[in-house]
């Protein structure tokens, strides 16, 4: 996991002709191993589209995303799906935990999907939940967890498979300020501990401060970037 994630001249266009919208208009970005990058910008600036391109969720209209030396656009949908399962982790704003599964089984899902036995998957997931401060809550359903606790379960799920990159889309968007800061601290430190890179889409400067680098976007382009104090 020591090769960077590289996006080169990414273009993503929706619609055709006069109604065409350029969500991405030539974005270059490199995410180094172990680096945490915040992507900031106003609504409609292309942040989430960029995240989806980087994670292989969508194929860009033009340009390339290279991970471990492979251009994601050359992979079939099935291979990209498998890649997202094995190499990447995801944390979303909400609606990501299966309501019928207890916390530990939600967190164990990626390992089980990758073929790990259930016993081993739940053991690893329970250890992650404990590491993230949720010891004793393994059997609780998402409906029995607070917003912050549910996001910690989502973080455990994102990290349980030891991914190379964790993608987070507004991970604190549905939380109050104090809980959001707490969750973000857990996310960044846990990701750093595993050596994974972190890409966070946010419109919150407070979130960006937790990352080593911040990339600013507007109208589908990168308009600037700066390093956090600690990284300089």
């Amino acid at each position, binding site marked *: 996991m020591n090769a960077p994630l590289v996006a080169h001249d990414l273009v993503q266009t929706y619609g055709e002709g006069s109604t065409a919208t350029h969500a991405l208009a030539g974005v270059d970005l490199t995410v180094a191993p172990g680096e945490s990058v915040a992507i900031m910008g106003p609504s409609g600036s292309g942040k989430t589209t960029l995240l989806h391109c980087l994670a292989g969720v969508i194929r860009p209209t033009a340009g390339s995303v290279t991970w471990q030396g492979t251009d994601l656009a050359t992979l079939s949908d099935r291979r990209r799906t498998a890649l997202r399962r094995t190499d990447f*982790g*995801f944390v*979303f704003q909400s*609606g990501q935990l299966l309501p019928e599964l207890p916390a530990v089984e939600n967190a164990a899902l990626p390992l089980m999907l990758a073929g790990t036995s259930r016993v081993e998957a739940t053991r690893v997931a329970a250890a992650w939940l404990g590491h993230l401060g949720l010891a004793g809550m393994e059997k609780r359903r998402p409906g029995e967890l607070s917003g912050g606790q549910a996001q910690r379960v989502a973080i455990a799920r994102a990290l349980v498979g030891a991914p190379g990159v964790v993608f987070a889309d507004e991970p604190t968007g549905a939380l109050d300020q104090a809980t959001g800061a707490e969750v973000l601290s857990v996310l960044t430190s846990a990701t750093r501990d595993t050596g994974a890179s972190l890409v966070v889409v946010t419109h919150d400067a407070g979130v960006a401060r937790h990352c080593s680098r911040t990339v600013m976007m507007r109208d589908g382009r990168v308009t600037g970037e700066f390093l956090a104090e600690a990284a300089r």
Partner: protein
Amino acid sequence: MTTLRLWSLLRSRSAGDEDPRRLTAVLAVVAFATATAVLLVVVAGVQAFWDRAGGADGIRAGLEAPETPYVIQYPFLAGIAALLLLVPLATLGAAAARMAAARRDARLATLRLCGATRSQVTGLTVLDAASQAALGAALGLVGYAVLVPAVARLRFQGRTFDMSELWVGVPVLLGTVLAVLLVAVVSAVASLRRVAITPLGVARRVTPPGMRAVRVLSTLGGAGALLVVPQLVGGSAGVAFTVLVVLLLVTFATLNLVGPFVLWIVGRMTAAAARSVPTLLAGRRIADSPKSAWRSVGGIGLAAFIAGLTSTFSLLDPGDSGRADEALFIADLKTGGFLTLAIAGVLAAVSTGVMQAGRVIEQHAEYRALTLAGTDSRTLDRARMRETVVPLAVSVGVATVTALMVMIPVVGLQPVAQPSVVVQYLLCVVVATALVLAGTGASRRVARAVA
């Protein structure tokens, strides 16, 4: 603003084609239309046999005759078939109503946040369900008109039906539409009772309480009744018919009591023993909501029960009868049995498809997140398939045991164990099961659309 005006405003601002809410509306309308059309055809059949028997006067005279003519038995048998079909019909109606109420939680919570009262939110749900039921019922009337010529070609009592025989009349048409509306409204309100829609969102999905042991006791009572009631058969045809109806009602009640309980246990066992994600998901979902899992296959349970009863018809050969009217009656009995079974199978398939689609739509956010995170669609398809197959196996098993409990005290063990009976039963169950699995397969399209 009145609830009606608010509802009308929201409808006029309805979302685009890709919104799952529109998909749910289409599925709900299709389910309501199917239920209405089939209900009308079934009522038309009962009415036609009633008229052929000479109406109330003719039937009364026939029952008082020293030997009840076969023509008198047709309306009773058709009535029993209609009674058997009432359960899958009601299940389909309720499934449609739940579909009509699906995916509105977030919208209703937002309305509560904006100041809508609880009664306004309930009113909006009722109006949504009722409007879709009304449209579905209207389409069902068209479906009835389309089906009647096909039904008229069926031969009973040695002749096909006249179209006029299958015309149910305006009062029945209106009554059916009203009944469908009533089922829709009651089910929609019942589905709202299970969630607390507050301005801060929708609260639910905590660890569900277990099934209560009272179900086991009630089931034992029902089973006892099944063994005792058939012994009361005797005397006039009217008494025999009443006993039969009571027997069927007890059977339905027993099936619906024991089914969810057995499913709850099987779901927990499945989840505990699961080694793969699809099996784990299926087991947890079944144990989470055994009643809804049972509802989604309850129709097939009933179809299996009907298949059990009608399988003994294979022992009857019209050629063995010395009397022409008896030979005709036996042949018609077989046709009617198969027809009832076929309708029950189709209704069960539509119910399962609609319920599965509704579930997918309700959980579309989780499905989408799982898909983005690299869960391939086959895993989700397998989970949904197992979520149907496990209850399906349980329902067929429970229905088979129940059918045996009903039949053995009446006809004995020997006819039931005949190879021809067993083969016919298995064939019917396989076909009905295939229909239900096809219904589940059809819900894949919905899963693709929302993921």
